[in-house]
Every structure is written in structure tokens, then in C-alpha cells.
């Protein structure tokens, strides 16, 4: 369960997120759509405090995950990020072997012994639908994989530490259509066990994979509702315009 209450976010003087309140149910897929620069990625990155890494930013309001405000001083940010996994726009495997990429989160969080790690790596790769393709080359560099495989590896890497939420920041935007459809299938599969929030530029993708959709514009959440309703019968005119491609 993710909930934000009157969140405002600033890059210096720039007001990037304007007073957004939203509630995301567990085990659902929520898509954020909107034109470039509308703040959807920034909003997504609030959920695992990735925006902390950017200097000269400011936040107002509350962001609750499982009922606790993650922006409280007492929050263990590393533990939070373990619970809230993230997949980035461009595949970004580490310069390590395929095995070590997936094992990374387990190692840095001291989770389990050698045997457990091995088992977990296999499970994660299977969950990311990559196991059959890489099981014979686990000790090869992750960069020997294709772009789509690398992105699934990044998903496996995120899954390995057993998060409850997975944030995906345009996970298929750098991939070809076949890889994209594989990722979409995967996202659909993962819904059973994880709460997924996905930012996308691709309207069809949002319509295909998500249960709920939020439409962002100029840092505001214009509309947030059931995906079917959003695409068939949106409340706001600007949503209608964006979805039908009249701007953006």
C-alpha cells in the first residue's frame, strides 16, 4: 500500500510536483503517463527516495508505504530501498557477471549463505523469464546479453531481494518491440506477488498492462482512475486530448 498526502517537490525553485495525493493498492499495476517533463518520473522516484541523491531539492508532504511515512528522520533508507525495488529506463547491469548482478542485492544486504544465494539467483532469473537463456553463461559478463535480456536481468536483480514494491521507470523505452512485449508479459506475471508502479511514454503499453492509470501534466496529477475508464471515458478534457494524441 502506497499513499501520498499533499506531496510537493522542488528542484531548487522549480516546483516539479504539485500537491499530489494518491493511493496505490497492493498487487496492482499502476501506470503513470504524461508528456515529457510532467514530473511522473520524479514522482516515481519519491517512493524509494532516489531523489535524495539530487542536490538542492526539497520535499513537502507525506509519502506512506505500509502506513509509515518514509520521509521521517528515523527511516532506514537502505532498508526502504530493499523493500521498494527499482528498474531503470536504460538497462544498467553492473560490470560484473550475470550471476553477481543478481546476487548483488543479497550480498550487500547480507542475506543468506552461499547456497541460499545460488538458489535465490536461479529463482529470480526464472521469475524474470531469463533463466533458460542464461543458465549456461552465468559467469559471463552481463554486457554480453542483448538489451532486452539486460533489462530482464535488471528486473531479476530487483526481484532477488524480495521487495514488496517494484518501481519501473520507462523500462521498455530503450528496447525493440519483441523485447518490450516480453517485459510486458513479465510485468503482468509479477503482479501476483508485487505492487508495481510503472512510468511509461507508451499509451498502448499503459492500456495493456496496468490496472490503474495516473495522468500527469505540469507537475499535477490530472486524473487517476481505473485504466479502462481512463482510456475509454476520461473525466478531463486534457486527458482525452493526450490519450488521443492531440498533444504531447
Amino acid at each position: 500500500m502506497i499513499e501520498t498526502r499533499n506531496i510537493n517537490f522542488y528542484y531548487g525553485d522549480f516546483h516539479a510536483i504539485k500537491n499530489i495525493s494518491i493511493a496505490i493498492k497492493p498487487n496492482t499495476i499502476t501506470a503513470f503517463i504524461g508528456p515529457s517533463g510532467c514530473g511522473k518520473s520524479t514522482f516515481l522516484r519519491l517512493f524509494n527516495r532516489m531523489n535524495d541523491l539530487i542536490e538542492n531539492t526539497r520535499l513537502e508532504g507525506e509519502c506512506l508505504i505500509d502506513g509509515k511515512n518514509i520521509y521521517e528522520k528515523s527511516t532506514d533508507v537502505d532498508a526502504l530501498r530493499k523493500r521498494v525495488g527499482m528498474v531503470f529506463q536504460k538497462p544498467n547491469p553492473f560490470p560484473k557477471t550475470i550471476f553477481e548482478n543478481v546476487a548483488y542485492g543479497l550480498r550487500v544486504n547480507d542475506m543468506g549463505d552461499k547456497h541460499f544465494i545460488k538458489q535465490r539467483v536461479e529463482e529470480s532469473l526464472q521469475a524474470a523469464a531469463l533463466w533458460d537463456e542464461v543458465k549456461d553463461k552465468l559467469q559471463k559478463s552481463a554486457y554480453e546479453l542483448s538489451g532486452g535480456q539486460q533489462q530482464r536481468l535488471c528486473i531479476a536483480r530487483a526481484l532477488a531481494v524480495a521487495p514488496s514494491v517494484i518501481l519501473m521507470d520507462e523500462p521498455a523505452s530503450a528496447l525493440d518491440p519483441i523485447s518490450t512485449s516480453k517485459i510486458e508479459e513479465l510485468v503482468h506475471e509479477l503482479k501476483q506477488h508485487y505492487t508495481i508502479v510503472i512510468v511509461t511514454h507508451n499509451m498502448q503499453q499503459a492500456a495493456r498492462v496496468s490496472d490503474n492509470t495516473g495522468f500527469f501534466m505540469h507537475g499535477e496529477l490530472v486524473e487517476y482512475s481505473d485504466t479502462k475508464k481512463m482510456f475509454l471515458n476520461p473525466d478531463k478534457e486534457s486527458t482525452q486530448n493526450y490519450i488521443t494524441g492531440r498533444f504531447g
Partner: protein
Amino acid sequence: MQKKKIIRRILDKTTEYLLTFSGAITGIAIVFITIFLFTEGAALFKSPEVEQGYELYVHAQNPINTLSPAETKKIFDSEITNWKDIGGKDGEIKIFRIDDAFSVYPEDELGENYALLPQKLGELIAQDENILAFLPKQYAPIGSSVKALVSHNIQPSDYFLGKEWMPTATPVPFFGVMPLVLGTLLVSIVALIIALPLGLGVAIYLSELASEKQRRLLKPVIELLAGIPSVVYGFFGLVVLVPAIQKSLHLPVGETAFTGSLLLAIMALPTIISVAEDALRNTPRAMREASLAMGATQWQTIYRVVVPYAKSGISAAVVLGIGRAIGETMAVMMVTGNAAVMPHSIFQSVRTIPATIAAELGEAPAGGPHYQALFLLGCILFVFTMIISISAEIISKKKNYKPH
């Protein structure tokens, strides 16, 4: 339009040829320098052990036919005084130098331009079986009862494994490079032990922890330090470090290997920091974010992701650091005391290879064994740096999972 195109094509071609030409010239120059170094150096092993232009002569009846450099040295140092000790007949060794001839024979007896000297010397040696004469070849004694000792050429083992560097000793110079090689290695290794952790630490601090403001202030200052001429560093070392080390460690002299190492570390630091910091900062933001997003702490991210990613850049920093340390001449020469003896501790005066070349090449007669020995020292230095570069290359290539 057509004209413009032709001109552009000519320009392109000219640039291409110029680049090829300069590349070829550089390559040829490097090969030429290397060949020159090694041929000059290798000529040393064709030189006799005895000082150039001189030879040792004995009575023809003397059973000794040759003397090793060590034996010769001991005889001339009066440590061996009897022929018996080196396998000859019983009898005190009488050393005879060319100067002694002038006390035996008045100058007017020697004729014009000492034309009669060889004959007189021959007579003199014939009179005494125990005589050992060290004479210029120019005045080689004449007579049937005189023989020259067989002089061997300088052996590679004497050079590379020799423990004494006395290039101007007479009658036999010693070109043992061990003290110089060990001195160089000692000073450089200790310098690196000091400089590497510090340099990498500062580089990591600058690239990962420092705020933008701090970095903008510190980076140019550090890079400025890299540009200070080494003689200025040497001066600083001589005036500040040497007395400080002498006092704080209660040493008889402050000019020690350790002083040199410390100064070299200070000199190598800016290069190491600057290059390593650039490499660390080149690690893509996506790598850091991916690691942090997995719940890794900042330190885990640094040593598990950022440093491995920057490995080849860091090894470049190390190589440049070692290169600076091992090849540095002036500053080291000014603070290490330059005693060409086998180093036993780091608080002892040592002499490095570059310092030896710089100090002695000016007074070594061109083409002589001393001159060649110095060239060979240059070759050793060359081989050292080559080994370091190659091993750094291997280390940075090994287990590198970076994108190709």
C-alpha cells in the same frame, strides 16, 4: 560548389597524410631511441675489466696469468700483499705505477716524448719477479721477460649482480648496479605505499563525498600541485623535510631513502588523485543509482560498483604514479644523500638509478665503460617501467566485465 568540394578533399587528404607522417615519425623515433639505448648499453660487455687504456704487467716468469677484479682491488688496497695468496710464488707484491717511473728515472733519460720509457719499463720489470705494474698501454713495456695479464671483459653477472658501484675506481672500476636498483625500488615502493592509499582516498572523497563547492575548490589546487617543477619540490624537501626527519627520528643525517619516499609521495599524489578522480567520476550515474536502489549503502556502492567500474582508470593512475616515482631524478637526488651502497634500512642514504645517471653522465668520458654502464642503467629503468605498464594493462583487463 565543385571547387569548394575539391579544396575540402585536398585539405582532408593533407591532414590525413600529416597525421600518418607524424605517427610514423614518433614510432621510428621511439624505436631508434630504444635501439640506441640498448646498443650503447650492451657495448659495456665488450670493455675490459681494467680501467680503459691501461693494462697490468708482470714478469714473464710469474705463474699468474690473470687477476679477477676483486683480487686486483684487494692488491691495490693492500689487503693482499703476497703473490702466494693468489696462487703465485712466495714473494711480496710490489705495485708499480707510471708515476713511480719518474722517481726511478730522471726525465732527461727518457728521451723525447718519453720515447725510451717502454724500454726502460721493460728492463725494470725484468729485474724483479714480484713486480705488478699498472701502466698505460701507450707505454707498454718492451722486453722478452715482460707479459701483460689477460684482462677479461666485464661480465653481465658482475654488472647486474654486483654489489659495488665504483665507476671511477682505479685500476679496476666496479659497475655493480645492485645498490642502485635496490635503492630505486626501495624509494619508489615506500613512496607508493604512502601515496596510493592516500591518493585513492582523496580521489574517492573528491568524487563521491565532497560537495560540488569543495570539489571546485580542491581539484584545481591539486592539479596545480602536479605542475610544480621537481627541483622546487627538491628544494622544499631539502629545506623542510630533511631537517624535520633528522630531528624527529633522531638520525645522524636527514637525507635518507625515507625522505625521498616521502617527497616522491607528495609529488605523485596530485597525479594519482587527479587521474583516479576522473576515472571514478566517469562511472555512470546509472551504476550508482542501480546499486543504491538495491539497498546498498554509499560505501558498498563505492567499493562494489564505483571502484570496480573505474578499475582501468585507477590502474592508469597507479602506473603514472609509479612512473613518476621511479623516474624522478632531481628531487630524489636532492634529498636521498646519494650514497651508492646496498640499502639495509629505509633510514639510510641511498642512490637511485636516475640520480646516478644525472650525476655521473657529465663526467663519464663518452664511449667509455662508465658511459656505457650509465646507458645500461637507463635500459634497466626502461625495462622497469615497461614491466609496470604491461602488468597494469593485464590487471585492468583481467576480469573486466565492462561493456566493450
